[in-house]
């Protein structure tokens, strides 16, 4: 903010900075503080109508709006990719209503809003990862009553959650659940990590960044402060495992990232590529080469030109 940029209507201009009014942001910040003070606890908040439908990230958008400032650098990903429709429009939304710089670079961003992934690149202190959460209650599928699930959280009665894992093993011979895999936070609160793949669950443990979770329709905010213990549930004889792939990323050759399967034609050809588009791009820029490097999918600009 240079002095030259100061306009006479500065106060009004910032009254509705970042879309939400000041009182709403204050209320959300209070809920965030409460959530950070009790890691894994679902703090209720007065979720507002947002200019997108429920299910499109209203919880995440409200969290971002409450914490963002003009000096922040904002990144938004959907399923790991920066260039998907939802990510692009939410990023544009904040570029417009909050006047912030945006980026696709994970390391450069101060606030990263995400749906369904945690970036591959480890997060650092000072960064905030904002999750969009459809269903904050991990027990909801097994216990429909909110009064009962609240009591179960209050009294730490989490045996029921194991019923879902038990069902998984008896049906598939292993814990086949892959997304939204339940975790224990600081051995106290059972928490749904939102529908991230369980591949990302270990990244939450002892993370340096602040992890904030917002569920707009369900009106709940919860959080994992930096350096918090996060343990994925499992059985003694069926320990927690993450997904593995037989192939590497077709474009960048990464062996250790979360891969998406892309069907190329109806003749059975397919490729596996990093779901984290920035991570993959960065690796290719560093000279890593996968078996299908140079494929048109690796070069979206050329594809646009068709």
């Amino acid at each position, binding site marked *: 903010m240079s002095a030259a940029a100061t306009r006479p209507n500065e106060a009004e201009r910032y009254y509705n900075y970042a879309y939400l009014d000041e009182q709403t942001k204050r209320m959300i910040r209070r809920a965030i503080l409460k959530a950070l003070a009790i890691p894994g606890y679902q703090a209720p908040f007065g979720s507002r109508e947002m200019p997108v439908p429920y299910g499109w990230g209203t919880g995440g958008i409200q969290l971002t709006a409450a914490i963002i400032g003009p000096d922040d650098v904002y990144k938004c990903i959907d399923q790991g990719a920066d260039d998907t429709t939802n990510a692009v429009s939410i990023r544009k939304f904040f570029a417009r209503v909050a006047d912030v710089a945006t980026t696709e670079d994970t390391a450069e961003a101060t606030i990263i809003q995400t749906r369904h992934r945690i970036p591959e690149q480890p997060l650092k202190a000072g960064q905030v990862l904002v999750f969009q959460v459809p269903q904050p209650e991990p027990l909801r599928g097994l216990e429909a009553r909110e009064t009962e699930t609240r*009591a179960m959280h209050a*009294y730490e009665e989490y*045996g*029921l959650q194991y019923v*879902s894992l*038990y069902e998984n093993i*008896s049906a598939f011979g292993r814990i086949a659940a892959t997304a939204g895999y339940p975790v224990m936070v600081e051995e106290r609160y059972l928490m749904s990590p939102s529908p991230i793949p369980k591949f990302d669950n270990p990244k939450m443990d002892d993370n340096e960044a602040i992890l904030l979770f917002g569920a707009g329709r369900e009106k709940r905010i919860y959080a994992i402060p930096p350096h918090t213990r996060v343990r994925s549930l499992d059985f003694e*004889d069926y320990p927690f495992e993450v997904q593995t792939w037989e192939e590497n990323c077709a474009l960048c050759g990464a062996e250790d990232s979360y891969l998406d399967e892309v069907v190329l034609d109806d003749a059975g050809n397919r490729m596996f590529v990093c779901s984290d588009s920035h991570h993959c791009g960065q690796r290719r820029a560093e000279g890593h080469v996968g078996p299908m490097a140079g494929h048109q999918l690796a070069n979206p600009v050329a594809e646009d030109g068709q």
Partner: protein
Amino acid sequence: MSAVERLASEPLLRVADLSRWYGSIVGCRDVSFEMHPGEVLGIVGESGSGKTTLLKCLSGHLEPTSGKVEFDTRRHGMSDIYGLSEPDRRRMQREDWGFVHQNPRDGLRMRVSGGANVAEPLMNLGRRHYGEMRSATIAWLERVELDTSRIDDKPRNFSGGMQQRIQVARNLIHGPKLVFMDEPTGGLDVSVQARLLDLMRELVRDLGLAVIIVTHDMAVARLMADRLLVMRRGEVVETGLTDQVLDDPQHAYTQLLVSSVLQI
């Protein structure tokens, strides 16, 4: 356990002057009794006589207006169940009690398999070894005479009688001290009812369980219960050994109740 030993032992449940009012309407009034380990107590009476209210009060689901329910808990010894903190009471209910509902849909999770329903109490008690829980479940399905190959079927795919057997297994697997049963054979046809009753009687005797069974069916009471409480308009009008009450009813209402049983 013989009747003499039973009386010599410390009571398992002690109910004193228990009353429950719904506003000005009486649910049950001035109920007092003691129960010993291994005893099966039947509560009989017509609809609206306060049987279910009494059962809810005894099982910790409905706080009585006045009076006391004391139970010999594993963790806290003999204690007033409504004097325990809520988490302690819930844990005691999980660990020491079972509750067989009349409608299996109330007592089972319909969205998870029969096997998981039976294993759930073990998980609630903190067991985290799948293989052990699985074999315990199979053993219990055998014990309630269910086809173990159907362990992973959903409850809705079982018949009413089989659902009730799953419910029985689910409520016994964790080794409770006391099991509440609310019309466990209601809604089943007579042959299924007879087989289920036979099974439950065998299990109760084998395990030396204490059971409180609420029923309006005199035949069920005769088969299952050692002792009966006869209720009418919220009050216990007669109590005694089952055979004594049914063969030689003293109170006019009990006489009416016994004589109303249909004969074939």
